């Protein structure tokens, strides 16, 4: 039994925390928040690339570090904790993972080294309508290698160079690689709930598209990509939730009301204990997901859904109750609570919301029970 990060992974994680403490203080996050023209922090993006993190799980032959999914999880937790305002998830958890999962050798060679080097931002474009991702809502279509349709919201679509798009060809769904620098693609930046993370509406009018993976496998591949991303996002959520708890605790120890710290009142103590409980449950489920990423492909659908459901709940709860603990100050622009409140929603929705993931989880459990 070895159900924790190894010493090497812990070292990586603590180095990542030191690095982000230095390079991603909250002023960097606020720099993006306060400037509508900025989609992400380019300086931080380059610095993170310098650490090799985009390529952490990309094989060495494609310019990566060739580490495992668990190492990437360790980095994800720290990025989540720091609210890093960079398009890391879209590029690494979605697009790089999709390429590694389904790419031909030529596709991998064309794109993975650029991702690993931090030269290319990716985005994963699936939904077109409100509500969870279903096969029926996909109107985007490919004919003769040209993509037509509209995708929104596409996280980081406003700054991405490469899109992985779920579209229909001869009635069957597939994933397609679209070079957004080529003609035929236009984008419109969307206002987002969490302005430290951007999104766009992508319009394709005959954009050159190359299939990624088998024809007709689009939905299955998208789900596999989502499962992997769900685990990695769960670590970002756990990182954010833990930080939100720390903020609440620090405030409760230093804020006095009626002559004593508010953290001495059971209403606050029990609230914070409840945050702790949810965070630990989320961490444990996320660890199981991390294990399944590398070693348990058969368990991944259940493990990923459990990690996502639990982490989404934990981060939302921690963010809203941490804000509540801060009282009126928590509702101000200057106090950081709303950054976590926004990010909790952003992360909780960007790979599909908890409601849909709960349904996926129970379907998987039914399948497992029947089998």
């Amino acid at each position, binding site marked *: *039994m*070895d*159900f*924790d*990060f*190894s010493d090497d992974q812990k070292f990586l994680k603590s180095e990542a925390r030191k690095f982000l403490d230095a390079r991603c203080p909250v002023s960097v996050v606020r720099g993006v928040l306060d400037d509508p023209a900025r989609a992400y922090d380019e300086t931080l993006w380059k610095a993170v690339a310098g650490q090799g993190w985009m390529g952490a799980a990309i094989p060495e032959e494609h310019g990566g570090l060739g580490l495992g999914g*668990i190492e990437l999880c360790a980095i994800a937790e720290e990025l989540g904790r720091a609210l890093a305002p960079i398009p890391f998830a879209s590029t690494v958890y979605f697009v790089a993972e999709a390429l590694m999962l389904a790419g031909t050798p030529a596709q991998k060679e064309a794109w993975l080294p650029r991702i690993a080097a931090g030269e290319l931002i990716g985005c994963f474009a699936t939904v077109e309508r409100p509500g969870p991702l279903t096969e029926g809502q996909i109107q985007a279509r490919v004919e003769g290698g040209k993509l037509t349709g509209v995708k929104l919201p596409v996280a980081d679509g406003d700054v991405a160079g490469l899109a992985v798009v779920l579209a229909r060809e001869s009635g069957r769904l597939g994933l397609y690689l679209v070079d957004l620098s080529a003609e035929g693609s236009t984008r419109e930046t969307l206002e987002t709930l969490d302005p430290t993370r951007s999104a766009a509406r992508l319009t394709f009018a005959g954009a050159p598209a190359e299939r990624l993976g088998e024809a007709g496998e689009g939905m299955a591949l998208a789900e596999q990509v989502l499962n992997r991303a769900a685990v990695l996002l769960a670590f970002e959520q756990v990182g954010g939730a833990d930080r939100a*708890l720390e903020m609440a*605790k620090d405030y*409760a*120890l230093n804020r006095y009301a009626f002559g*004593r*710290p508010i*953290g*001495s009142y*059971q209403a*606050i*103590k*029990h609230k*914070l*204990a*409840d945050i*702790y*409980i949810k965070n*630990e*449950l*989320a*961490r*444990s*489920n996320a*660890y*199981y997901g*991390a*294990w399944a990423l*590398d*070693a348990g492909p058969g368990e991944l659908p259940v493990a990923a*859904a*459990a990690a996502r*459901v*639990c982490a989404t*709940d934990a981060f939302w709860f921690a963010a809203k109750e941490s804000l509540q603990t801060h009282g009126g100050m928590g509702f101000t622009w200057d106090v950081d609570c709303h950054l976590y409140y926004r990010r909790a929603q952003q992360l909780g929705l960007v790979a599909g919301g908890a*409601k849909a*993931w*709960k*349904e996926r*989880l*129970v379907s998987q*459990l*039914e399948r497992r*029970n029947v089998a």
Partner: protein
Amino acid sequence: MDFNDTPEEAEYRAKARAWLDANAPKRSAGAASDMEDPVSMDASRAWQRKKADAGYACITWPKEWGGGGGASWQSVIFGQEESAFDTPGNPFQIGLGMCVPTVMTVGNQADKERFVRPAVRGEEIWCQLFSEPTGGSDVAAARTRAVKDGDDWVINGQKVWTSGAHYSDFGLLLARTDPDVPKHKGLTMFWIDMKAPGVEVRPIHQMSGASNFNEVYFTDLRIKDSQRVGAVGEGWRTSLVTLMNERLAIGGGGGAGYRTILKLARDISTLAGPAAKDAGLREKIADWFVQAEGLKYTRYRTLTALSRGQTPGPENSIGKVVSATLMQDMANTALELEDQFGIISDPAKAPLAGAFQSALMNAPGMRIAGGTDEILRNIIAERVLGLPQDVRLDKDVPFKDIPSGR
């Protein structure tokens, strides 16, 4: 991360399993373990003795005291393997988990020599006499008096919620020896013979219908000063040793409950179609599943720390507060699902042999015993998160002057 054993763990596990295969008793004719029944009690004692002979009882305790002289991870692995067998009930848990370790840590040499080995071998059973009618969560408010009389102490008072008092040979007693000092300073710990004159055990009839706990009354119970465990006035500190020794809550539990409710849902139709397809129910099942699995993997994290030779983190403190409410919620939802049949508790006629009716009636006890939900949240807030202790109006007041209410 790796769920597999290290070679050393695998070797120990294989040895333990082989021993269990050869030695674990088969329970007689389907009867659940019942400590009121002398046959099950004999089976429990026999099983404990067999484990002790093989070094599988109190695995982490020194061999000189009858233990196994092993490591914590070995104890956990043996527990996991043992749980797969239909072994007899364990009436030794409180003695071996809390009382006897206190004697080992604080007691005198004669007491250690007298008590430890027979307890390990299941020859003598202990109960813990801490809680009182006026002090459940507030254990240090104990009012049971011990008054010095020559070389003796005379005990008068009442304990409550004492598990297994009716079949115990000895009890670890927290008593007030000085009511004129603040409450934490006037307590002393003793061991008593549960069969001595002056000790009366009355079972508590629980709301579930069962009687797992007792009231214990002391009327002029006379004991020797040599039965004192630790110094006079040090009882509170000694009781902390007892409570710290609470067995690591590893093993058992896990995500089994969701299977039962899915099974129930497959056999029931709602107004909107099959219950198993009900979106509201499915969301709840997902929530319960991640909680139960979260607890299971949290125990794995604790086990990992043990197997690396580290002190486990505080994460295991969340176990009961999550599982008790989980059990209550699940039972209530299951009864709703059964609709009018939910009122039937007769196992012969209720769905799933009344499993959820029984869970519903046991859940309140789960949320209270061994630390209420509220006390456990205080403990997490204070000991894990480092928030201030509650304001205590009784801290520096002589015990006799503390208002006691009902």
